[in-house]
């Protein structure tokens, strides 16, 4: 089996030095803490990432010095808060290569971003007989919103299958796409398998039949360089907390012309121009889709997080994480009774596995006692679990601040688990 992951970036980067790695780790206060008396080895980055001091400071400074509501006050604090929040939006724009800030809608997370498209675009455009195409490896948040809108509109949900390595085939995509396909919703990087999907090719194929494409970038955003203009995707959704930003922050990128045609999906303050009991009119983009007071501190923190990631360099991140992932895959496979779930040729950051006679939850508890945090469960991807015939997997997911020594501790912890249950 070929288990050398080939990322799509990072190939040209120099190996990360120990000094560099130590400096990165020092940026994250939590990485210096202990769990159950052992140094924390945080290998659950797929669930959420840790926050660097600059992000923590940005959030804390906002509340300490600038706290006020945005887009409405004429007083000094409101002006400052508005400027800081909009600077966060601009940082998102430049990070993903969007043409303008009108295309950057700030949400509370990937889930909300996808629900926004499903409700607003889907509700207005899907009809009985239409099809929405997703893949078998999607996270529940890229399945259920489509199921709900399909039920409401009479459209049909069609699923692109995966092979046992956890890959989709472009032949299957071509075959399933047809003039009835109105939208393809696909993850950029699978949270349960680590597979990197060939999204650029999928987008090209989908556009040939006139279908739109939404990319779920929740997992990808901290690991793969994203350029929405180059991808030519119609929508790109991601969460701030998975890229070292605050929880409760998210982004929906959408092509401006498309967003213009879409109706608002939540009504309230900030998203309106004029409200009359007879009829109200809507604000301009992106505010049309941003009803209510947003997560202001979070949006500011997200901007700072993206700036931090840019400084570290996604190329360096990809190179270091690939080294970690390949080392982990190699070491894991030497353990008797261990099976990797997800061995796609192109993959990143995630090592998902099952062990004979050892349930993932027991593994999670035993590793926790060693100070090692992993995820155990179905990873909100029950259809993936069904594909492999397992109820749950254990998942170690890496960030650029993880070390080879932490992988060694993971392996030692798993050996201890095997001994306990032998």
């Amino acid at each position, binding site marked *: 089996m070929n288990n050398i992951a080939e990322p799509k970036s990072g190939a040209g980067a120099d190996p990360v030095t120990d000094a560099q790695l130590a400096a990165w780790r020092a940026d994250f206060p939590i990485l210096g803490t202990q769990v159950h008396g052992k140094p924390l080895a945080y290998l659950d980055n797929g669930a959420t990432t840790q926050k660097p001091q600059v992000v923590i400071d940005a959030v804390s400074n906002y509340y300490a010095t600038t706290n006020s509501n945005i887009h409405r006050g004429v007083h000094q604090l409101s002006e400052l808060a508005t400027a800081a929040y909009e600077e966060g939006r601009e940082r998102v724009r430049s990070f993903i290569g969007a043409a303008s800030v009108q295309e950057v809608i700030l949400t509370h997370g990937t889930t909300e971003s996808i629900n926004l498209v499903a409700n607003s675009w889907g509700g207005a455009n899907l009809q009985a007989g239409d099809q929405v195409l997703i893949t078998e490896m999607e996270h529940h948040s890229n399945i259920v919103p489509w199921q709900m809108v399909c039920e409401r509109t009479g459209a049909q949900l069609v699923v692109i299958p995966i092979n046992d390595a956890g890959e989709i085939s472009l032949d299957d995509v071509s075959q399933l796409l047809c003039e009835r396909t109105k939208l393809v919703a696909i993850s950029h990087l699978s949270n349960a398998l680590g597979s990197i999907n060939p999204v650029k090719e999928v987008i090209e194929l989908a556009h040939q039949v006139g279908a739109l494409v939404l990319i779920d970038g929740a997992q990808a955003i901290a690991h793969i360089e994203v350029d929405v203009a180059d991808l030519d995707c119609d929508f790109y959704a991601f969460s701030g907390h998975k890229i070292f930003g605050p929880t409760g922050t998210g982004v929906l990128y959408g092509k401006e012309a498309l967003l213009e045609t879409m109706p608002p999906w939540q009504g309230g303050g900030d998203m309106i121009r004029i409200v009359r009991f007879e009829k109200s009119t809507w604000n301009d983009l992106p505010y049309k889709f941003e009803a209510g007071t947003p997560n202001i501190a979070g949006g500011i923190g997200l901007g700072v997080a993206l700036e931090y990631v840019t400084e570290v360099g996604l190329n360096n991140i990809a190179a270091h994480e690939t080294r970690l992932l390949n080392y982990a895959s190699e070491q894991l496979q030497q353990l008797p009774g261990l099976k990797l779930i997800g061995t796609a040729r192109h993959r990143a950051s995630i090592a998902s596995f099952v062990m004979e006679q050892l*349930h*993932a*939850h*027991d593994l999670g508890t035993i590793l926790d006692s060693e100070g090692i945090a992993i995820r155990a*469960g179905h990873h909100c991807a*029950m259809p993936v679990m069904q594909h492999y015939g397992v*109820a749950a997997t254990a998942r170690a997911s890496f960030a650029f601040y993880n070390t080879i020594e932490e992988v060694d501790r993971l392996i030692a912890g798993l050996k201890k688990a095997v001994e306990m*249950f032998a």
Partner: protein
Amino acid sequence: MMDLRELYQDLIVDHNKRPRNFGKIDDTTYFAEGFNPLCGDQLTVYLKLDGDRISQVTFEGEGCAISTASASMMTEILTGKTMAEADELFELFHKTLVGEIELDDDTTAQLGKLAVLTGVRAYPSRVKCATLAWHTCQGALHKQHDGITTE
């Protein structure tokens, strides 16, 4: 945190490795399927009653060591008990694990062998593993066949 060995006591490891009364009872109307939405674990409990008394309990499904051992021990302990006694024991077990009943000598004595499972009190996310089979058994006893969850 307490020592891991207090959670995974020998009796638990043993029941996990060799679950007792594992399998299906075909000719019964007392069965239920239980589901732990947190981890995706699923198990089915089957019962046979002789009047008001439980004459046989079995289970099938896949789960972690805590959930499997709890199910296995449950099948042994409930065999021969009346429905009312089973309900009572479920309540004592459940309330002890979620911390509503104090774990004193008296409770430990009443729980008997089941006391080895009280280690999960130190692991809030694992309490549901220990109670899944019991919730499911309640469903089976009261002929609520599906939709049993630990929530």
